[in-house]
């Protein structure tokens, strides 16, 4: 289980997270929605210790990430796959090498690594692209390789940072289907950060809206769709006022 406990974070005096609390139960996918710049990605980065909280903490499998030493943090990270907004593929490596890097760190043998790469690329419909360089791929393909890199690790948790941002509607739908397929095939717990409501309704078991640094409302897809909270309503309907 992942639990945000009263998380605070500020950058250069600007308060971004102001008491964020949220529980993500095992096996479910929680979608965090909210306006741009409200700290959704910041919250996600606290789960893997890329950022340190000013106050509060994120608890992953009973361990407070912000307090962990280097080795313990490495062990927590080995159970988490992270899909970055712009894929963050290593541009000096081929697609296969990108996928192999994390697997090698987990001490797997060459044959096992090869099997995992083949399986992960097949799952994202990119079989045969193993020898391509990231620069040769389209934006959507790069995102799918980013997802393949995460799922090849067979993690307990997958974190998606704006997985459909900047993609056309069809490619977005492909990514959404992929996220659902990943959860169904691998049974992983997911946290998805997005402001794409169609994506949120497709992949989320629950939706949480982050507003002014804390959770404004959290509920099932149906509950969010029927909400009477004017802030949440305005956001999900995409109204200017």
């Amino acid at each position, binding site marked *: 289980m992942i639990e945000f406990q009263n998380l605070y974070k500020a950058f250069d005096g600007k308060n971004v997270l102001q008491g964020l609390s949220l529980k993500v139960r095992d096996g479910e996918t929680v979608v965090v929605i909210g306006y741009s710049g409200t700290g959704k990605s910041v919250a996600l980065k606290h789960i*893997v210790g890329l950022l340190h909280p000013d106050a509060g903490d994120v608890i992953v499998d009973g361990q407070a990430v912000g307090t962990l030493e280097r080795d313990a943090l490495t062990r927590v*990270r080995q159970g988490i796959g992270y899909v970055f*907004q712009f894929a*963050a*593929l*290593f541009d000096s490596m081929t697609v296969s090498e990108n996928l192999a*890097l994390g697997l090698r760190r987990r001490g797997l043998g060459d044959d096992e690594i090869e099997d995992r790469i083949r399986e992960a690329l097949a799952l994202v419909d990119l079989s045969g692209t193993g020898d391509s360089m990231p620069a040769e791929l389209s934006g959507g393909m790069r995102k799918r390789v980013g997802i393949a*890199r995460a799922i090849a690790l067979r993690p307990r948790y997958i974190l998606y940072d704006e997985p459909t941002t900047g993609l056309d509607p069809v490619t977005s739908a492909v990514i959404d289907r992929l996220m659902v397929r990943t959860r169904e095939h691998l049974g992983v717990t997911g946290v998805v950060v997005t402001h794409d409501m169609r994506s949120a309704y497709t992949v989320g078991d629950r939706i949480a809206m982050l507003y002014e640094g804390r959770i404004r409302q959290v509920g099932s897809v149906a509950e969010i769709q029927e909400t009477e909270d004017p802030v949440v309503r305005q956001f999900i309907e995409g109204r200017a006022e």
Partner: protein
Amino acid sequence: MLRPYLFLHAAPLPFFTSCAPTVFGLLLLPVIEAIGRRSISAIEALGRFGHFLMDMVRGLRDVGIWARLVVVQMRRIGVDSLPVALFIAAFTGVVLALQASYTFTGAVPLYFVGTLVGKTMMLELGPVLTGLALAGRVGASMAAELGTMKVTEQVDALETLAYDPQSYLVVPRVLASTVMFPVIVAFAIAVGIVTGWLTSLALLDLSTSDFIKGLKLFYVFKDVWFGLLKSASFGLTIALVGCIVGLGTRGGAEGVGRSTTRTVVFSAILILVLDAFWAVILL
């Protein structure tokens, strides 16, 4: 918030009281504030540097991660930099021989050309010119590469894959640079001396035996290890600056450009400071 000028306005010194406090506040206090801000950021930078070094030392434990990458970096830093270093050294040797002959003007025996070429290449120009040239080539390349990785979240991706960026990115570069710089400089010194000798033969009517006689005249083994030790310290410095500045990059392509320039400038300054430091300590 209490500001320092509130106290300075009330200063009991006659000079201050005779001046209009607003003049003092308007002209001097912004300067003092700026100095204060600069001092605080300098202390913070020193703290970050110490922290970075501690993390790097911790990263040394992950031998399994950096051992293979060191070899790759040694090739990139060492082998790929060799042509530039040798080109510079070759022309330096030519110029040294001709300038020595011009300076001596018959007052000093010509075989001292060998002495001057050898000593200068080993003690000073071999290490320093190579260091300055490679600050541009190696340091800038490291800062640009790591800076790009930083702003495109590749460094974060590395961390989420359970790699320590210090072990994976910094340690291999720093070790390779420290080890390969003396090797490059050794070749550069040799090439500089050879071109100095060839110039003496072709243009100065100096025989090989006379050149070698001059070369050996005041030679001590310290000349060699002094130059190589210096170059190792230059290699360490350039790689550290490239990694620290590169990994501290912010703000996209413009930030990468800024980091690259800063790395070259800082490295060049530090090379010259280190050069003086080693001269004071060891000569």
